[in-house]
């Protein structure tokens, strides 16, 4: 699709904001090449889905993310209610997500979709991280390998990873 007429151009707005504040320009990731591709082989109703969210989710008892390029991940049980998930992040308003974590980490809704047979199942663990990492290099060299290892280590074979940014 082309950019929806009314979609907010966050790149342009951030550029203007940084200019007006005298900050050096933020460098957005640009990947104009054709992206890597793995075909989807099963219908949704037979697919095991893994949830990955960059809203900064963690569980009580876990160390919370810090806000300065924390490249760690947290594994959260997928069978817990979303209300058990805490969130921490410096760049979005946390109050609504703390009232209902499903809006950034939709555990309850994905479990609902399993129950109604819309998707086949949910990986037993979901993967949370804090996506506000300003260094693309550190995102690619530290965060991404940790996520790949975690997905690889999941007990289930994953048919689809659903990625939820904020």
């Amino acid at each position, binding site marked *: 699709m082309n950019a929806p007429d009314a979609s*907010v151009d966050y790149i342009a707005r951030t550029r203007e904001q940084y200019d007006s*504040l005298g900050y050096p320009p933020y460098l957005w990731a640009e990947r104009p090449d054709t992206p890597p591709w793995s075909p989807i082989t099963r219908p949704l109703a037979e697919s095991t889905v893994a949830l990955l969210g960059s809203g900064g989710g963690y569980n*009580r008892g876990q160390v919370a993310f810090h806000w300065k390029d924390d490249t760690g991940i947290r594994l959260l049980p997928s069978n817990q209610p979303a209300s058990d998930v805490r969130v*921490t992040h410096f760049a979005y308003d946390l109050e609504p997500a703390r009232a209902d974590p499903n809006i950034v980490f939709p555990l309850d809704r994905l479990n609902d979709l399993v129950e109604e047979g819309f998707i086949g199942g949910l990986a037993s663990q979901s993967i949370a991280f804090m996506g506000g990492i300003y260094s693309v290099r550190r995102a690619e060299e530290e965060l991404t390998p940790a996520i790949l290892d975690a997905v690889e280590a999941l007990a289930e074979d994953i048919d689809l990873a659903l990625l939820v940014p904020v």
Partner: protein
Amino acid sequence: MSLVARALEAVGVPTLTLTAAYSITASANPPRAAYVEMPLGYTAGRPGDREFQLNLLRKALTLGVAIETPGTIVDTGVRWSEDRSWKSAASSGLNNGVISAEGDTRQERVDTPQYQSEDDRLAAEA
């Protein structure tokens, strides 16, 4: 997030990236993406609105898995509100147009764990 999607796909894991920030996602170019017209911080729906959240995920999943061309972003048609005035104020950072702030709207990036509550900190340090 799009970079994570690309890396997963390169090792054989199909992905679908939900996005409320079309321009950012288009720039980083993940294999499959589904656009929702939502303020930042509400990517997966309205708080406390189960039907809205279910509808959003059903549409994103149905349209997302049907993508055949790598680098496609489909529009789910999901909209935060018929009143689209929030978008005129929205920027990245803490001002999402729904809860407005001005100037540098990010919180300070500190390098110590930022717990949701003091109770969480005590539980983690126990």
